[in-house]
């Protein structure tokens, strides 16, 4: 340290122009570049012609031998099952698979940027039904129906009717806000899925003499009872029910939307060509308020950061007595956790008329409309969704729930799930009423993320009616813009 230096050693005057220029350019680059690089301004939409129409003759698995298919995949047990079976595909077709995997937290950002670039770097990828509503309209997805229907392109045992009908329909839409799912275009093929039910700790319920809830009122009481009684019964710091709570669309779609639908509530109603938000109807306000109160009274602290991971981990770690979420989220917690072997499944509370309307998430496979390798990509897609691969994946790996009826009803599949108490029985009870319960629309992610934010505010003590009124007013303008 030199204390004998003169004033001249204070920093020299920085040129105002220089600093301003640097600041301006830096800020501009920071603000603009990442986004703009990702945007293909006004890119082409999908054309009406399909590459499938050019194929003729008989089907041959080896037709595209020597080609390489690049896949963009989420890190998931389904992807692990695929990787375990890749050699089978490669020897059957002679096609090489290159798989890039990303964790779910940034997977869809990666998919979105890839599709937006329209470069066709990946030929096929994983997505859910809601993504079709966003990726479909700009023409990022290839219609798979011409491929399915062309006998030169599809092997005879593909049998699309073998998929559970609601799963196949979930991949069809005409891109008109509010229009029902279905139609002549198939934008994705179901690969694996999750129905939403209640998983619970059977040992805790047995010790406390409790039974799973059959109505929403019972669920609220049950969750409170468990939280009150479990610690004194030897289950220290156990709380009642785990559900998702983070500020994202995924908070709305599992337990919340399932219970919401069972009570006969709607997210939107279609009036002419307009979508009218209904999450502020008196019944919806009452339900949302009670849901938030249930979580506040009987859920985890720190709920607003709860994703599927935290919610299901709490069940596995013995911190939660119930999980109202994806059936498979709980299934994976039934192995190698403190709660292993102690979980049981139940359809969850019924609606007032006894209905079990259930929302679902479908991990599906789609083809990039900008793929330069569509034929080989289709050869992969039909193999990955075939009975052959899905039977192997569901019985030898962890590819659960099965999207094909032939797999779901097979003895081998049921046998491997027999150790999960009431898993199959619960699945069979709800599958008939399991479908996408949201109104299809292009601004789904805005609507549901904003809905989750409103739910967090109500959980934090905000008035449910005014919060949901404000949400509905804001959404009406945005979803109809």
């Amino acid at each position, binding site marked *: *340290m*030199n*204390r*004998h*230096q*003169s*004033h001249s050693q*204070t*920093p020299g*005057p*920085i040129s*105002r122009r220089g*600093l*301003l220029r640097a*600041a*301006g350019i830096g*800020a*501009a*680059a*920071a*603000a*603009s*570049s990442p*986004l*703009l690089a990702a*945007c293909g*301004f*006004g*890119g082409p*939409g999908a054309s009406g012609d399909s590459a499938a129409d050019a194929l003729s003759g008989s089907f041959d698995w080896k037709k595209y031998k020597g080609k390489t298919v690049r896949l963009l995949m989420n890190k998931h047990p389904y992807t692990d099952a695929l990787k375990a079976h890749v050699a089978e595909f490669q020897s059957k077709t002679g096609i090489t698979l290159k798989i890039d995997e990303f964790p779910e937290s940034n997977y869809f*950002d990666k998919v*979105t940027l890839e599709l937006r670039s329209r470069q066709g770097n990946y030929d096929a990828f994983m997505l859910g039904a809601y993504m079709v509503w*966003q*990726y479909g*309209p*700009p*023409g990022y997805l290839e219609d798979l129906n011409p491929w399915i229907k062309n006998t030169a392109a599809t092997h005879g045992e593909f049998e699309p009717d073998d998929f559970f009908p609601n799963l196949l329909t979930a991949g069809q839409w005409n891109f008109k806000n509010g229009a029902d799912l279905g139609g002549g275009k198939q934008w994705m093929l179901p690969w694996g899925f999750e129905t939403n039910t209640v998983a619970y700790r059977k040992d805790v319920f047995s010790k406390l003499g409790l039974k799973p809830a059959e109505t929403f009122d019972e669920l609220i009481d049950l969750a409170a009872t468990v939280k009150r009684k479990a610690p004194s019964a030897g289950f220290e710091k156990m709380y009642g029910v785990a559900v998702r709570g*983070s*500020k*994202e669309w995924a908070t709305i779609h599992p337990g919340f939307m399932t219970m919401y639908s069972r009570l006969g509530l709607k997210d939107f109603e279609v009036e002419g060509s307009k979508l009218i938000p209904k999450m502020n109807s008196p019944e919806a306000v009452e339900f949302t308020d009670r849901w938030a109160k249930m979580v506040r009274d009987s859920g*985890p*602290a*720190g*709920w*607003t*950061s709860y994703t599927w991971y*935290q919610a299901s981990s*709490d069940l596995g770690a013995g911190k939660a007595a119930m999980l109202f979420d994806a059936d498979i989220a709980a299934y994976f917690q039934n192995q190698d956790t403190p709660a292993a072997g102690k979980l049981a499944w139940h359809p969850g509370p019924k609606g007032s008329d006894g209905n079990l309307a259930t929302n679902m998430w479908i991990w599906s496979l789609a083809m990039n409309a900008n793929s330069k390798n569509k034929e080989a990509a289709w050869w992969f897609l039909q193999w990955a969704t075939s009975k052959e691969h899905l039977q192997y994946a569901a019985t030898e790996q962890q590819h659960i729930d099965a999207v094909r009826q032939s797999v779901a009803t097979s003895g081998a599949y049921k046998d491997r799930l027999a150790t999960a108490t009431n898993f199959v029985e619960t699945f069979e009870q709800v599958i008939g009423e399991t479908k996408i319960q949201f109104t299809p629309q*292009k*601004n789904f*992610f*805005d609507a549901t*993320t904003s809905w989750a*934010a*409103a739910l*967090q*505010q109500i*959980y*934090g003590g905000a008035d449910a009616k005014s919060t949901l009124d404000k949400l509905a007013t*804001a959404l009406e303008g945005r979803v109809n813009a």
Partner: protein
Amino acid sequence: MTVTAAPARRRDDDEVRPEALQTAPTVSRRRRALRPYLLAVPAVLLCVGILYPFFLGVAYTFYNFSDANPQPSFVGWENYTALFTSGSFWHSVQVTLMFAVVATGVETVLGVGVALLLNRSSWVGRIFERALIVPLMVAPIIAAIMWKLLLLPEVGWVRPVAEGLGFAGYSGTDSAAWAFIWSVVVDVWIYTPFVAILALAGLRSLPSSPFEAAAVDGARWWLTFRRLTLPMLWPYLLVAVIFRLMDCLKVFDIIYGLTTGGPGDATTTLQINAYLEAISYARYSRGVTYMFILWIAVYVISMILVRYLNKIQSRSAGV
């Protein structure tokens, strides 16, 4: 030796070969004529590379480009009027400004405090001086995730500590106030060392004579700090404040990683709204409009601060 000999030899050669002098000017003139343009090429390329996307981005703000509307049309000022009449926009302006002012203020005060402590030469100070840089080496998104895990009531250690200290009912970032406070804490944790390092550099370059004179006059520590240290340190601190304020106005990773802008919209800043609009909701024009407005705000605020910085630098240099 070689270095000095070589030019001398070249001069000798030029003297004995005058024809070389006759051809050299022709080449040299061409080169001389081209040289400014060649020198400007990297700068031009850099400008085009930076300005093209910037102006393209500005152009997007006048269109309705989104995935729902992939063939956009010109909409004039519609994106701007939509934002300026939206409660969500003004709320995010408020959150952004509050975050920037509070975080920059706390970091500056703490940074100066840490610098004053480290300025006393001791072996402890020397160790801390080196350790100080560690948070700066952690990527902000990693720091945010690290803190998020610490704050989670079910798994982190903050809850047991809080309960041990008698604060019952700890709930992480569940409440709007705590979500904001923890976001500021993470920013302060990462960036206080940045301010401290600049302040320490400033402290060590201050002249000693005014302090010696003050000591002879019997001035107390607080008076010396207020009347001598702080005014002389101010140019250094202002540089730190400018950088931190600009950075805090653009904050994204820390808040997104910690709270995703929640609960509700309690920590939703302009950048988070821009991200949601452009990436999550695929409404590109609306997202770019958020960013352009933020850029204007950052530019204007930094311009005012830089003008002030120049003024006090001129004053301290006696100009």
